[in-house]
Each structure stands twice: as C-alpha cells, then as structure tokens.
C-alpha cells in the first residue's frame, strides 16, 4: 500500500551482527542522548554494544548503569522529559520489575524507545524466548512491535523513534526481539549512514512540555475522578493517530533508504489466493515462510501472515487479508492461561479483530516454542494439517493445542479434560 517511488539506494555497508548489535548501530546513528542499562539476559548485549561504542568515542551519550530496572526506566523517563532522546530495555522478569515506571512513561506521553529481548518469565529461571514479557504493557499506551530479523531490528529502531516522537503520537515504543534467535545470532545487516538517518528522523522536540527553567510547568499533578478519564482519552487519541503516522513514516522510509517493507503493519507472505494461513510474530516468521514454500510446492494454497505492529493492532489489515480465507492457524509464542479456547494472546486478539466479518475463517489456536523451544518447519506443516482438518470438519471452537510439547493433547487421567477434548 505504501510503496512509493524508490530513489537510488542510499549508501549502506553490510555487517555480520546480532539483532542487539543492529539496534545498537541504529542508536548510534540516531545520536541517542541518554541510555540506562541493567543486566538481564538476553537484551543486555545491546547495552554492552553501546557502552563500548561510547567508550570508543563512536557515540556521544550519557550511559547510566542503573541499580534496578525500575530506576533504569525512571532514568529514561526523566531524561526524555528534559528533552533527551532516551533508550532503555530489558527482558522477562526484569521488564516486570520496572512495570510501574513503564506505565508512567506511557501516561506521561514520553517517546522513550525500549528493546525487549523476549524471555520466559521466572519461575523457573529460564532464558529462552516467550512473548509474555513485552505483552504485559499491551494495554498501557506503549507502541509494540515484533521483529523477525536483525535488519528489521535496525530499520524498526529508526522507525520507532520517528513514530514515537511524532507530535501526533508521543507514546513510548517497545521493540520486541526473540531471545537467542535474534539477540544472540549474527545476521547480514545493511547499516545506513548517519546523514540519511537524520534525514529520516527529525530532532526530538518536546515543546511546551520540556522540563527546563525556561519552561516553568508542573508535570503530572495528582488527578481526581473529574480529570483522569480525559487524560486517558488523550492517550487513546495518540494511539489512534499512530496508524496514520506509521504508514506515513514507512512510506518515507522507502523514499530515504530506497528499500523497506511493502506493508507497514503486517508481513504477508504468498497470501495471494491463499486458502489456508498460518500466523505468528517474531522469528517464527522465518520458518513459517519456508513451510509455506514447501506446501506451495506441493500444490497447497497456503500463506503466512506475520503481525509486526501489535499496538496499534492491525485489525483493518487482518480483516482485509483473512476475510476470504478458509482456515487460519494462529501460532502463539506466549500463554494466557484460562483465556478463550485456552489459546494465547495473539489468538484472542485475532479472533476479536475478525469478529465484525460476516464470513469468518475457521480459527485454530496453537501454542508453540515456549521457553525458547525451537519451532520447526515440520511443526508448522503439522499445524497446517490440523487447520485443514478442522476446516473440513467445520469445527467451530477448537481447544488450543500445544505443539512440540511432550505428552498427549489432554490428560487421560483427567476426565474433565478429555470431555473438553481437543481436535482428533
């Protein structure tokens, strides 16, 4: 939708770097002013990278080693309030520890950008990817994005500041990146030069909210019931306006860098004439596309749909792309125990997004790859089979199936579970 006339490619050099390093490169190019770090695997290698760049004089910024995630995020929030471009990040329970500071950053409408290296929530202590950590801010006014590749991580970091700092939006943005597969493996990444980046991302201006003696204001006084709802509505308006700003920025990305995604909100792969679709977020998209190629080779009309922006949620795109489809399998790399059909968060959101459609595809929830477990091409082929069968059987409501877990769908020792059943 937004592919504009592409100019000659801007000068770029290729490097072999991890997703975290790619974000660090973007931060250098963005001339970020204040960064606060606190160690937790796997996001922390982005802080390792920037602190080295600062020490080597490749980057001019204040790097603060915080004494907790809560302080780390508060430091970012207050730096942003003074007018500094700020960056934070975390993973798993670290992200949870700073939750209070994350919430106020959003309600103060401060365009801090964060990297969430997705990680399973303790207990048990586990380092592998699960999307629940970043999901925890989905209702608080944070823009949320899930990347698939290191290149996308770099590009989206530029996009994130551009969108978050836009006067019409002014909301923080969290970039989610699968632990291990992106944070700790190196990819071929094209790194642009600073000039093109500054042409794409204008300087950060906080205007009459700037915390400075020349702009005497009181920020965030105590509100009572006569005011809070209006303030919430303002945040809501910022999030609603974000869609247009994202589209605009993505189009501009093409103009400046001579490359970029076709669709700002979703990554649709071989969706044309697709009868069956698999959906997911993050690196599952990489194997998903391979699986689709194999199924297409076998004559099946299958496509893969990857959700990139989770907030704002791409409901218009999903409705347009899925309304003609027979069956859809939603692969959640997260859990939402006790939710609809015992599926994950993405499943519930997709189901809600499609509800207004008169002709809805059969929707099949899957949970896979928790705690960093690999999701294989075979897993995805298996899921597609299940979707086709469910569509043929016309089963309306399917209890979520766990893919790649040892043991049966339902516990034979548990009568209730068997009665509830799964797809056979």
């Amino acid at each position: 939708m937004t592919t504009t006339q592409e100019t000659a490619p801007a000068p770029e050099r290729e490097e072999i770097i991890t997703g975290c390093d790619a974000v660090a490169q973007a931060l250098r190019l963005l001339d970020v002013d204040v960064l606060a770090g606190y160690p937790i695997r796997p996001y922390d290698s982005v802080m390792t990278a920037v602190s080295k760049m600062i020490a080597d004089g490749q980057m001019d910024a204040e790097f603060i080693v915080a004494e907790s995630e809560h302080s780390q995020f508060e430091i970012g929030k207050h730096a942003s309030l003074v007018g500094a471009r700020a960056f934070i990040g975390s993973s798993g329970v670290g992200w949870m520890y700073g939750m209070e500071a994350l919430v106020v950053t959003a309600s103060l409408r401060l365009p801090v950008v964060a990297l969430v290296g997705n990680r399973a929530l303790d207990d048990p202590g586990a380092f592998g990817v699960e999307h629940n950590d970043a999901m925890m801010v989905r209702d608080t006014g944070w823009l949320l994005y899930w990347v698939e590749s290191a290149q996308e991580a770099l590009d989206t970091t530029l996009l994130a500041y551009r969108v978050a700092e836009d006067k019409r939006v002014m909301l923080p943005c969290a970039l989610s990146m699968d632990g291990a597969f992106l944070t700790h493996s190196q990819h071929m990444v094209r790194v642009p030069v600073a000039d093109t980046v500054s042409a794409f991302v204008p300087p950060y201006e906080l205007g009459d909210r700037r915390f400075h003696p020349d702009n005497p204001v009181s920020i965030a006084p105590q509100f009572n019931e006569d005011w809070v709802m209006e303030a919430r509505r303002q945040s809501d308006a910022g999030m609603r306006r974000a869609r247009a700003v994202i589209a605009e920025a993505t189009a501009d990305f093409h103009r400046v860098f001579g490359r970029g995604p076709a669709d700002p909100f979703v990554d649709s792969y071989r969706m044309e004439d697709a009868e069956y679709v698999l959906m997911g977020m993050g690196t599952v998209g990489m194997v998903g596309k391979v699986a689709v190629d194999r199924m297409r080779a076998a004559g099946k009309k299958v496509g893969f749909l990857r959700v990139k922006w989770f907030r704002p949620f791409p409901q218009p795109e999903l409705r347009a792309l899925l309304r003609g489809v027979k069956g859809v399998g939603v692969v959640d790399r997260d859990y939402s125990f006790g939710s609809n059909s015992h599926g994950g968060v993405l499943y519930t959101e997709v189901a809600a997004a499609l509800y207004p459609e008169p002709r809805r595809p059969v929707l099949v929830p899957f949970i896979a790859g928790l705690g960093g477990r690999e999701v294989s091409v075979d897993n995805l082929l298996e899921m597609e089979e299940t979707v086709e069968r469910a569509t043929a059987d016309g089963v309306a409501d399917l209890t979520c199936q766990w893919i790649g877990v040892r043991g049966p769908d339902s516990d034979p020792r548990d009568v209730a579970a068997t009665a509830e059943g799964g797809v056979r």
Partner: protein
Amino acid sequence: MSDETSVGAVDVTYRGIFQKNLAGVITKELVKAARREDKVGGTVQRYGDSPERNGIPAKQFAVIADDMDSLRVEMTKYEPENVVVVCVMDDTLTKGVESWAWYGVRPINVNLAPGGTLLVVSHRSPEELLHWIPRRTYDWTLAILPGEPSFGGLWVYNDDGTDYRTMGAVSRVTGGLISLDSLIAQAGSAKNPDLRAAQLREGYESVQMHPIAAGVGAQDTYVPVEMPDWTQMREGLVVPAVEVGKNNTLFMKYTTRTTRPLVKFDTCVKCQICYTVCPDECFIPTPEGHYDVNYEHCCGCGICAQSCPVSGCIEMVDESVFESNEPLHKVFESDPAAYEDLRAEKVAQAGGANPHYGIY
C-alpha cells in the same frame, strides 16, 4: 424525611482530621439506629477529601432509605443527594467550603435539599450566621445546637458528647428521620449508655430551629467550575507553573481557617520570624519592615502567633468575627489609632484571643 422520596442523606461537614472521628461516629451511629426502624442505610466518606488534611473542610454522609434500590443509587455517588440536613460541626465553616483545589469556595448549604435543615454547632445568633450563609431559592431551616466545636486528633478522640448531642438534634430537626427512641436504644450498646442517652436528649431539646425564607441570607457568589474536555486539556499531564511573585489562586485555603492572626503592628519589632516560619507564605513585607497578612491563603495554623517573640503582637482571633479577607496593614498605615481600635474591637467581639501556649 420528605414525603416524595424514600431516601434521605445526612451531610456532616467538618474540619478535616480534627473532627474526622466525630463525623465517623455520628454517621455510623445514625445508620445503626435507623436499622432499628427497619430502614436500610450506609455511610459515605467523600473520597475527594481523602487524604484529609488538618482543618481543611471535609464531608461524611449517612444515607438512610426505606428500600435497597433507593439506597444503592445514593451509595454509588461521591456526594449522596437529597440532603435533608447538613450538620456543620464548626460554625466558621459557614463562611464556605473549599475542600480541594480548582473547585472554588462552595456555599455551606449548596447541596441542601429544599425544605432541609442546616444544623450548626455554635454559640452565635442566627443573624450572625446568616451574615455568611448564602440565600437559597427555596425555604429552609437554620438550626443551632448551642456548643463549642469539638476538636480531637487522629489518634485522640475528644469525647465531649458533641457526637450524641448532634444525633439528638438531627432526630429533632428532621422530624424523626431517625426517632430519638431508636437513637437511645442504639446508645444502649455503647459504653455508659445513660450518659449517651442524656446527651441525645439534651441535643434533641436544646437545638433551636429558625425557618429561613427563600432569598434570605448572604449573596450567593458561587459559580460552579467549568470543566474543559479532553481536547482542551494540555497533553502530557502538564499545568503551567505559578508566575514568580504571584501565588496559586486556584486554591485559596482560607476556609481552612478557624482563627486568624491579627497583628498589633505598633508593637512589631520587625524580626521577620512570622515571615520566616509561615508554611503558607502568607506574610507580605511592607516598605517599613512590617509583615502584612495574606488572609486569602492563611489557613490559621497559628505558628506565627506562637513564634512571635513579642507578647500580644500576633494573636489568633476567632475567624467568625471578621468581615473580609482584605489585608489590614493599609488601615494601620492610614491611621494607626483607628487600626488599634478595630483590632481591639475584633478581639473583644471574639471574646478574647486564643491563649498563647507559652514557650517551652
């Protein structure tokens, strides 16, 4: 309780913290007594007042109804409606109620239902009180329960019978919203029930009721605040700072005051202590080195009077004898003798100044 409705609220307007426990006892015991008449009820602490601050006006309500539906409707409000009686636990509250910022100074009887009663604990005459209480467009009743305001603390309750005397008076002025018998029966479960019963009866009998016609009373200058919508509010939860040299005119604080500092300028030694110790920045330097008082913002804490090294130079005088918040130093400037007469007159009118506690 008026005939057309089966629900009535008792509004207890009081001095924050000092009378919080008092208001709590009154509202709760009223509801318990009403239960003895097969009525239903509950109490409401106005949430906006919380956390209460010393002296800042606050409200608690007892809601009493014949049926649960009528009760449920009122119990989901911050300020229950159909207030049949407003109990004013300190008569200086009749000057107005500014409970928190931005909403302005509301009249003491702003929420009184037509035909309702304003019950004031006071030694003052109806005329004196009507000097402050704004007129209504309907008839109402001014009831006076003779007595001193009862002040306690957060941890120390001032058990002087004001609670039960007020409940007795409420029964009388509402024509039996809760009967005296039910109140006495309820008091039977309290400590020393005979004393409580006596206090209830005394309040019931000693309260004096004065019918006030529509249009009688002080001018009503209150203008309800206009609330901007979400597109009009500044984004990012931002409020402009006070301009240097000015102060916050959206919260005046003077309705917190029960006594005001009155300065005997001719004895002032210009030591600057009052200015230095005032937590509300209310002393304004005059060219000759005196310190005038900003009575719009003074909350009457009395620290200045207590800290002044000159005996009798700053005295705390009952607020209810003063007409306006106009600063007084200009009177002294034009005619020191006339000012001294005015000062002495006010002190006399107030029955003397509050005693100084002496220096430790």
